[in-house]
């Protein structure tokens, strides 16, 4: 193996596909750059001042040639656009069976939580061969989750849930970087992804001791913050039933309707008067400044786990 390698290790299902685009473009652009360089050098030597060569009838325009070098690149560009666009769309389409990981970024660390409740900081253990879905938000500024070996990157924006998925293909330790400038210790906001064989991963999960699971933690928070006082089906307060809410179409008091996703629930907790459900009074207090981002994620997972209506 050579001491220098052009590409970083490729350790996800997407990496090989991105590398193919990279290498194809490199061949194409390398050829064009070389062709132009050769032409310039050849012309520069052949037609240098004082050289006796045929300079008769120099062309000042050639419509066929000029249109040709518009159309040919256009066709090639269209092909690359479609190819890279299709892979990008694939990158944005979440596999349904992906294992969720809940990520909260803050200056200057990554806090990660597994579905079973095991929590990590600046390090993420994942099994090889299984799609992993990251649900991410930020407590402060914009960060960006970047794993070069997986060829994936996604900005983590405060006030939003961003998502990203990957399937690791080989066991190993891979860099995790923050790719969006986030202040003083931006360069130190990194860590590693530890990809493990499924059996090793299962052992690792167990080694953390018994944890109650993120949904169970969410349930505890749901009661602690008093959500259950109104949203429990047995409550006397007229508040929407949350069972089966995620993915459901919701009609709002002002006539709009939307599909309830994580961001909708988050907004409803922090800005309850923004999207009031039709048939209900805007009586819910705002929890802005009281609930941390990782607690919100746990509550959302509890709502997801409620038995469907």
């Amino acid at each position, binding site marked *: 193996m050579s001491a*220098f390698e052009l590409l970083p290790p490729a350790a996800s299902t997407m990496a090989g596909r991105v590398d193919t685009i990279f290498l194809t473009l490199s061949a194409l652009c390398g050829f064009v750059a070389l062709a132009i360089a050769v032409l310039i050098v050849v012309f520069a030597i052949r*037609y240098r001042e004082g050289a006796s060569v045929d300079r008769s009838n120099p062309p000042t325009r050639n419509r066929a040639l000029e249109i040709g070098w518009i159309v040919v*690149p256009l066709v090639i560009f269209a092909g690359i656009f479609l190819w890279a666009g299709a892979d990008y769309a694939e990158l944005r389409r979440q596999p349904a069976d992906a294992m969720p990981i809940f990520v909260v970024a803050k200056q200057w660390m990554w806090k990660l939580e597994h579905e079973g409740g095991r929590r990590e900081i600046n390090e993420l253990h994942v099994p090889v061969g299984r799609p992993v879905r990251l649900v991410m938000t930020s407590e402060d500024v914009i960060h960006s989750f*970047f794993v070069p070996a997986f060829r994936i990157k996604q900005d983590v924006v405060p006030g939003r849930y961003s998502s990203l998925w990957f399937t690791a293909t080989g066991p190993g330790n891979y*860099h995790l970087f923050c790719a969006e400038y986030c202040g003083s210790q931006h360069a130190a906001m990194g860590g590693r992804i530890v990809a493990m064989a499924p059996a090793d991963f299962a052992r690792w999960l167990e080694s953390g001791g018994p944890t109650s699971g993120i949904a169970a933690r969410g349930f505890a928070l749901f009661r602690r913050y008093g959500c259950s006082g109104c949203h429990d089906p047995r409550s006397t307060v007229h508040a929407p039933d949350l069972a089966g809410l995620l993915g459901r179409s919701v009609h709002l008091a002002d006539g709009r309707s939307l599909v309830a996703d994580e961001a909708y629930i988050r907004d409803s907790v922090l800005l309850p008067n923004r999207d009031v459900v039709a048939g209900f009074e805007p009586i819910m207090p705002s929890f802005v400044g009281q609930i941390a981002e990782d607690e919100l994620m746990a509550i959302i997972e509890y709502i997801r786990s409620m038995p469907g209506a």
Partner: protein
Amino acid sequence: MADNYLTDGYTLASWLTTRDHKRIALLYFAAITTFFFVGGAAATLIRLELATAQGDLVSDDTYNRLFTAHGVIMVWLFLIPSIPSALGNFLMPMMIGARDLAFPRLNLASWYIYVAGGVMIITALFLGGVDTGWTFYTPFSTLFSNSHVVLTLLGVFVVGFSSILTGLNFIVTVHTMRAPGLTWFRLPLFVWANYATSLILVLATPVLAMTLVLLAIERIFQVGIFNPALGGDPLLFQHLFWFYSHPAVYIMILPAMGVASEIIPCFARRPVFGYRFMAYAILGIAIIGFLVWGHHMFVSGQSVYASLVFSLLSFLVAIPSAIKVFNWTATLYKGSIRFSAPMLYALGFVGLFTIGGLTGLYLASLALDVHLTDTYFVVAHFHYIMVGGSVMAYFGGVHFWWPKISGRMYPEIWGKVAAVIVFVGFNLTFFPQYLLGVQGMPRRYHAYPDEFTVLNVLSSAGASILAVGYLLPLAYLAWSIFRGERATSNPWRATGLEWQTASPPPTENFEHPPEVTREPYDYRPEGEIAPP
């Protein structure tokens, strides 16, 4: 020496109150040269820090202030005004056979506004600097940064008005003051390029100004515009910022293309190949350039459909750039090429711009951009365009028009040596950064993992060569003002109107108003200008 614009008054007041576009151009030269070396000093410290993997030369906060200062100064105080306001100011009226710009007083006001903004930015730097990056992303810039954000914003805001006024001045001048016979399709491509640049300056800069005001309002008064904690949207800021800042890239590169289009035909003794397509390409770039801003946001969370549209448009904007490269190359065919310093710079420009442009295709390719964006690949890409392209062309232009501006010849041998040093130093500095980016090194990192050391050392070594290449012209051009050989009116046997008057030109530019009867770039390989 006969009376000329340089001898028309020797007092400081005669310079600071001048309305002569040529003297105002020199005021710009003085200012941008100062800012270039201040921005360069910041770059020097950045490269020194990155010569080792650990953050050991300066603290992380200092490093963040250095790259912000480098970006802000180089973009707004050097690159944007460099060719339009300095070279363009000197040349635009002369190239169209006019006595001055349409609004000479406004032109002087533009310079004062520019200097005022520059002083604010430099003041902020000396008060402790700003650490947001030149992109001022929210909510970091509005809520989290403890640095001189507002003063810097105000400086950029003020400099913007200088851009707008210069753009307006150029547009009116080109429309109303062309010499008899100088039709639109007889205009030098330098005029076309600066005209298109002026359109962008006038249309895009106000958006930047508004965006910066909104940012300042949020930072000072805690009004929720971009900050999600106050109900704002941080992506809105990115859309508004790039709506200006992507066209700003074309503000920086179009005038450079104009310079190359003057130099290459002159030293190849051939009319520029495909003149009309060259002019259309300039306008095409200016127009499509307004519609590609979202390609900075492929991983920001913008919708997949928006990303697809911006990707497609980004490929499209590469077409007119490709046309220009092909046409410059074709201009050499059957020429009679002389390799004077300006030509070396211009050929270097074509090569480096080509590499910068081609690597732009990588970043327009959606799935690949996900990996490459926010890494050193992007840093390398835009430095190839802005430094390899724009700065190279700027130096080429300074050498080419130096005899006209100063009335003296620069020492040719030193000119060639500097051009070669800049070309070699530039590639050694920035090519390794492409490789670093591909391997995944994020930008704006004060320290980095050990495996990136070799390429960073190469880059820093290249930067030291590049620095020599930039300091040399400062020395020999200054020397030539006093000791250089006196220039004739047209030492390059060039066809532009600016060469049909004395070097340096008289205050009124032309003794007799010129009339244009020939097509542009009427060069002949035999070395003789065709008889009228």
